[in-house]
Every structure is written in structure tokens, then in C-alpha cells.
């Protein structure tokens, strides 16, 4: 008989791998309006999506380097903050990713039922 803790340990590891593949879609979907790092972290937390700052902040920078986001330091607030938002390419890619996700979801749901 396998201990439930052992099973949970494996599930945690595998589900983290599964989530890793979807993080980009999740983050991009929340950047249709501009957000700064901490505001996006809170937004995702409120929606029940668990993501650590170590993952989110560098990911936003990476998406910008890959050309999907634009960023801008705003200095008119009490403290300077860097805001990110999808650019034209990012929006197009997000749209395609959404479609892809829906199709994959249908297929996977069918396979795993």
C-alpha cells in the first residue's frame, strides 16, 4: 500500500510541471491592461492562481525580451514602478494561444475521461 504522503509528493512534482507549461498563457492573459509586478501578483492570487514572485517577475522581463510585452517606468507616482502591457504581437500570440489551449483542453479532456 502506497502512503498518501508519497502519492501527494509525486502529484505535487508532476502538477508543478504541468502548471509550468501554462504560466505564460496565464500571465499574458492578465496583461491586456497594464500592470506592475506586485499588482499582477495580487491579481493572480485573488483569482486563486498560485504563483511565486520568483517566477512571476523574471517571467515578465523574459516575455518583454521575447517581444510580447512593452514596459515603461512610471515616475509620476509616489515611487517609480515598472508597468508591463501586451503589445500588438503579444495580443496576437495570446489570441492564438487561447485558441490552442481550448483545443488542447478538449482533446486532453476526451483522452483522460
Amino acid at each position, binding site marked *: 500500500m502506497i502512503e498518501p504522503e508519497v502519492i501527494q509528493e509525486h502529484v505535487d512534482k508532476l502538477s508543478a510541471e504541468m502548471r509550468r507549461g501554462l504560466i505564460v498563457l496565464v500571465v499574458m492573459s492578465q496583461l491586456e491592461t497594464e500592470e*506592475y*509586478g*506586485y*499588482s499582477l501578483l*495580487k491579481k493572480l492570487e485573488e483569482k486563486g492562481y498560485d504563483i511565486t*514572485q*520568483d*517566477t512571476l*517577475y*523574471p517571467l515578465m*522581463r*523574459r516575455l518583454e525580451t521575447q517581444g510580447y510585452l512593452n514596459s515603461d*517606468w512610471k515616475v509620476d507616482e509616489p*515611487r*517609480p*514602478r*515598472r508597468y508591463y502591457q501586451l503589445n500588438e504581437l503579444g495580443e496576437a500570440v495570446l489570441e492564438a494561444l487561447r485558441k490552442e489551449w481550448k483545443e488542447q483542453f478538449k482533446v486532453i479532456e476526451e483522452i483522460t475521461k
Partner: protein
Amino acid sequence: MKLSEKSQILLNRYLLAVERRLPLQGRKDMIAEIQANLLDKLEDTYSPEEVLTESQLEAELRKFGSPRSVAASYHTSNALIAPEFNELFRLVVTVLVPIVVAAVFLAGLISFVVSGGANPFGSFFGLMSSMAGVAMNIIGGFAIVMIVITRFFPGVVGAIKVGFIDDEKDDWKVSELPEPVDSSDRIQIWEPIVGIVVNSILLVILLFLFDQLVGIWWFSDNAWHVIPIFTDAFKAFIPMMAVKVGLELVLNAIQLYQHRRSLLSRWFEVGIKALELTIVGLMLNAGRLLFFDEALAMEHGVSTEGVEGLSVLFQFDFLRWFLVFLLVVLGIDLIKKVVQAVRKTAETIR
């Protein structure tokens, strides 16, 4: 939320520790953003009037993460050498290093022959250490360059593309795929390489340095001396032995090129074994092959007891017995090789 003087110092020290571990490119921008995100979190956790103590801030910073882990998440990879260099590094290790090491080996061998076989032990170990040294220098030097590029010029890494490696990866034809190799035809790549090294040394000794190197080595008066033991009757076989070793070198080269035992190399091997057997057979009928010169031995510092002992050994004519043994072993081996070659030929014809 406000920071006490001590808290501010702690925050600055923490941020400095993070900054030092961030990638060089865009470091200032990254640390500014990390600071902004950290202060956002603190402002969200504490009321605007609250003054944060050093211990409160420390607890918050611990939740935020160690400077090392925070900085590590901004590195795209923590590899010491960027994975983009993998193919190039493999090429250096598997192609460039063997070529240079082989060149060093050849140069060492030529210089040994030119020196007339002087200081054979020193030359051998010197050559081995030169070969190992040159291999390590190339691999180590290349690794250092790649580490420096990965660490300090990450922008260059992305631009590096070894075109012909990529082409080779993408472009392939069915006709270029290797034929399936039967397990009995498989050879390990090191076998012909070791064969080439050993046979090259043997050939050089047979052709150029036989008198200087082959015999009984004796250390006296702070120097090594060679006491020749082979008669002219034995030396008459040296050209035949050299031909046999030369043919083995050719066989090694064929096997290295084909990466397998082919029908050609099998029959070639049968020929070599037959020649070897012939040489041993002829040697058995060639009269006295060994002669121990007692006077010369004593002249070279061998003690009287040593000379007596060696004389008894030579009277026993151990070489002849060894040749008889060799004749039997080689005969069995030749029969085995012929059977294998015939079977393979029949399989090929079918």
C-alpha cells in the same frame, strides 16, 4: 509604511547582495524593479504610519527570499557554460583534441627516432605527459573561454551559431544511414586507435631502434645499459616482422575508417595471421636466435651471480619453447579466423 534608519541600512545591504548576483546586462534596471516590487509588498502589508523595525524587515526579507535565490531567478540559466556551446565543445573534444594529440604523438616519435633512441624511458613518459598536457590545455582553455563568454558576454552566446553543425543536424539522406552491424562485426573505436599507437611504436623500434632498445636492460654506474641478446639469425626476420606490423597498421586504419569488421578486413586479418604463423615457423628452423654475451654483461656492470643466472636461463633455450607455444596458439587462432571469414563470405553471397 516607513523604514527606521537601521531598517533602511538592512534593506540597502540586502539589495546590494542581490545586485551583485544579478546578470551584468540590465543589472541596474533589474535591481530597481526588485526594490520597487519589494517596497510594494511591504506597503501592502503594513499601514502607512507604521515604522518597520530591523527585525520586522528581516522577517519580510526572509519571506522574499535569499539574495542568491532572488538573483538566480533572473538568470535564464545557471549553467557555467551556456548550452549553446555544447555542440562546439563536443566538436573540440572529439575532433580537434584527437587530431592535435595524434600530431604530438607523431612529432614525439620522429624526434625519438632522430635522437637515435636516446633516453627511451624519459622520452616515453615525456611523450605521454605531452599528449595528456596538450589535450587538457585545449579542453581547459576552451572551457575557460566559454565560461567567460557565458558569464560576461551573454549577448554573444545567442549570436553564436556553428552553421555546419546545424546543417548536418537538419540535412540527412537515407543512403547515408549506416548499414546494420552484426554484433560479431562490431568493434570499439578505441581498439584500432590503440592498435595504431602500439604498432607505430613497434614499427619504429623494428626499423630504426632495434639494436639500441631491444635486449636486457641493466642499471649500473648511474646509467641504463642494453645488453643485446638477439643473434643475426633472429635479426634476419626483422624485415618480415616489420611487414607484418605494417600490414596490421593498415588493418587498424581500415577498421578505424569502417567502424566495423568488414569482409575485406576479415580476410586481410587472415592474411596477417598466416604471415605471422609463417614467420614463427621459419624462426623455429633458423638455428640459434639468442646469444648471451657474458663478457659484455660483466663489462656493463652485471654481477658474477647475475651473469651465471642469466647464462643458465639462456641455456634453457626458452625462446624456442615460446615459439612452439606461439605456433600452436596462432594456428588455432588462424583456423578460427578462417572459419569466421568463410562464414561471413557465405552470408554475404547469400
